[in-house]
């Protein structure tokens, strides 16, 4: 097989940080190469150099045997490299066709050749099995559809080498599987693909070869069939990481009970007739494909959304719709789904973020004035106890990596000694080391008697941590099953909406 891409000893420094240290990489024609590494290992930097977003300090990039001039994305495009960014670069107010054609035509041409463009787009869509509606406005498309547009945009520019940065970060599992089938079809037609990931199972399932980056260096390269997830995890993290395991223990009295709760979100019924019970010392896992009502359940249990019908009670008292402040005061700790949008105020320092939820508590304020020394000491304690790396109380929190930010949010919740914990996608986007740490903390809170609701799209995580599981489908919750009864087949059926209602259910 011919080599289509050759990265030769690429080095890139940002100030004191060496993001890429003499990384050499080859891509063969018709191959899917996975670039695996933890957050901050230098994967995205390397691909940005290849695509010309950054100029390397040292090293060369060769595409189809010809050296690319550094720092020029247009040269990379012309050489046949297409990139699909993690955060899409589409104009939401334009149509799919507009987005695909944008920038592909000479600036001075008076009239856009839209018919030609449309025919070409439809042909590509057909050829690679990427259905799109050319006249739909991009803002109205789902994330999966937008990703298809991004891929078509690259193909429209004659990309022969496709780079996908964390393509599955935003996709639900079936969509991700579909994406990899499409990618496999593309390599059959002679395209070559690099995808960036930190998820072991998809790397194992979808790639031909794996290159592992750690701390800016390429630490290993393996043929996928000749390696194992354990092997890769160790290479990626640099040590053996094992997720902690749940130990059986007796659960306590019911803490948080929902009875036939209905929630509306943006004028639509997002949760319908939902019932569950979480006991002290228990983890209740809510599994399901994303977009089935998890957001509404999260909003309900954070105090943001009020129930339209039914009852939500904490130790027998009605609490539905009391609002976030009352929820916090009642001892409900919340780990939000989206760290950046809901969990923290990025521009504020770590110490202000650590006490923002409890500013009014006498610990942290007197007569309306913030007790800054106490708040800083609290933040320093969280950093120490929850092993938040790269942070001081004064650090602006947006500078923390995803995993460290999550540890701080979790610490903020756990340090308040909560009766109930809502953990909504607590490990999304985290690397193996951070996932293990988050799991250990949740299990520790469980042994201390907290009632925990874990909303997760990662089946492995939900099954590993939960005492009981319920599936969320179309805004409804299945009847619970115990972890022991939850074999993959049964869970799969539940997530597809098939379960037995108990006799006494109304």
């Amino acid at each position, binding site marked *: 097989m011919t080599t289509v891409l050759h990265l030769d000893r690429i080095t890139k420094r940002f100030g004191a940080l060496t993001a890429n240290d003499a990384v050499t990489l080859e891509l063969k024609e018709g191959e899917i190469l996975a670039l695996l590494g933890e957050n901050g290992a230098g994967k995205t930097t390397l691909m940005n150099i290849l695509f010309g*977003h950054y*100029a390397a300090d040292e090293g060369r990039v060769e595409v189809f045997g010809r050296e690319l001039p550094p*720092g020029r994305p247009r040269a990379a495009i012309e050489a046949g490299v297409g990139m699909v960014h993690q955060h899409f670069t589409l104009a939401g107010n334009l149509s799919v066709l507009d987005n695909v054609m944008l920038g592909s035509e000479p600036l001075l041409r008076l009239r856009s050749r839209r018919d030609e463009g449309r025919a070409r787009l439809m042909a590509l869509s057909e050829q690679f099995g990427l259905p799109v509606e050319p006249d739909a406005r991009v803002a109205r498309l789902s994330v999966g559809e937008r990703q298809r547009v991004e891929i078509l945009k690259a193909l429209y520019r004659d990309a022969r080498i496709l780079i996908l940065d964390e393509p599955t970060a935003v996709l639900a599992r079936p969509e991700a599987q579909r994406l990899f089938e499409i990618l496999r079809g593309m390599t059959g037609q002679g395209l070559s693909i690099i995808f960036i990931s930190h998820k072991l199972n998809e790397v194992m399932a979808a790639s031909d070869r794996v290159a592992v980056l750690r701390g800016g260096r390429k630490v290993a390269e393996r043929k996928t069939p000749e390696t194992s997830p354990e092997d890769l995890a160790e290479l990626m993290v640099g040590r053996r990481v094992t997720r902690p395991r749940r130990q059986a223990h007796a659960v306590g009295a019911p803490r948080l009970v929902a009875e036939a709760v209905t929630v509306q979100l943006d004028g639509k019924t997002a949760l319908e007739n939902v019932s569950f019970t979480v006991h002290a010392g228990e983890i209740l896992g809510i599994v399901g494909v994303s977009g089935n009502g998890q957001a509404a359940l999260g909003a309900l249990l*954070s*105090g*943001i959304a009020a129930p339209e019908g039914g009852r939500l009670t904490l130790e027998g008292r009605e609490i539905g719709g009391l*609002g*976030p*402040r009352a*929820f*916090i005061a009642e001892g409900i700790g*919340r780990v*939000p789904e989206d760290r950046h*949008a*809901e*969990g*923290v*105020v*990025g*521009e*504020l320092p770590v110490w*202000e973020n650590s006490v*923002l*939820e409890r*500013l*009014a508590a006498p610990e942290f*304020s007197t007569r*309306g*004035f*913030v007790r*800054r020394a106490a708040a800083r000491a609290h933040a320093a304690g969280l950093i120490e106890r929850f092993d938040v790396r790269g942070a001081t109380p004064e650090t*602006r929190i947006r*500078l923390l990596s995803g995993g460290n930010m999550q540890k701080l949010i979790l610490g903020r919740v756990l340090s308040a000694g909560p009766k109930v914990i809502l953990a909504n996608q607590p490990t999304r986007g985290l690397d193996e080391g951070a996932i293990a740490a988050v799991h250990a903390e949740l299990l520790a809170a469980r042994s201390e008697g907290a009632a925990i609701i874990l909303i997760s799209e990662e089946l492995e995580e939900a099954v590993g941590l939960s005492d009981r599981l319920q599936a969320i489908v179309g805004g409804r919750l299945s009847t619970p099953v115990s972890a022991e009864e939850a074999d993959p087949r049964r869970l799969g059926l539940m997530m597809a909406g098939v379960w037995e209602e108990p006799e006494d259910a109304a």
Partner: protein
Amino acid sequence: MRLERRASVPWALAATAPLAAIAAALALAAGLILAAGVNPFAAYAEMVKGALGSRLAVTEMLTRAVPLMLTGLAAAVAFRARLWNIGGEGQFYLGALAVAWVGHDLISGLPPALGIAVLMVVGMAAGALLLAGPAFLRLRFGVDEVVTTLLLNFIVILFVGLMIEGPLRDPLAFGWPQSVPVDDAFRLPDLVPRTRLHIGLLIALAVAGVVWLILARTVFGTEARAAGFNARAAEFAGVSLPRTIMGVALLSGGLAGLAGGIEVMGVTGGVTTTMSPGFGYAGIVVAMLAALHPAGVVAAAVFVATVFVGADAMSRATGVPSFIADVIVALALLTMLVALLFTSYRVRR
């Protein structure tokens, strides 16, 4: 070439950014002065002399800086919470009118100190109420406050015109459209004898201190900042957005209203529709030059006042139209916005 967000903004850079912005604005305005046929260096020398060259000049400049400090604080408070209060001018006038009305004869007989305190509260209340409306509309219906506050300025100025031609007209003003004056007992005492500089300067400085304390040290200030940076996260953390935004609106409107009230009590006595050379709008520039920091507001207000007062002197000495002051202040806003870009981002190739 691309812009990269800085991990942290060095202290020295943040401090020099306004100075660089001002220098750039002056350099750009020098082109216009040159076009007017005058040596810019001579013109700027006249400007500095006119604003800082004598005891009288300095007191005039500081007199002008007092309302700018207060309107600057009003804008800074609001902008920090991402409440875009462009209505400082209207709040200034309504505060001024309320103080003239109440201070003319409604509270006669109160001891002067108490009367002045009452009138300050009246001015603040008028400004606060004026901003409460747009804030309510935004919270309840999502109406853009930039539009409502900006348009209210014109309504308020026309309303002031109506009142000073009608019910609040000063009968002793020989037909000049001017409102009844504040009772002499409630005029602010002079700070420097035989000048116009009044104790409003001390009041404005104290208010700046209090505003700083509120923003930096209180629960309310912290919540307002959090709501400004990330409203969703603040709400998730239990901050009540309606209460916070409304609190910010009352504080911001109150400060701009206080500016008008103090100007009436300290300088003009009565209200005219020309008493403000755009104090409310200039307050926005002051706040931006100060990077929304209360201490910076004091310094920036002194700079803008220097330009305003100095430009008059420059105009008399060199014949360059005094409109150059507005040009310099407007340019300073633009250069400051560019400077802020360079303090938060770094240029990379």
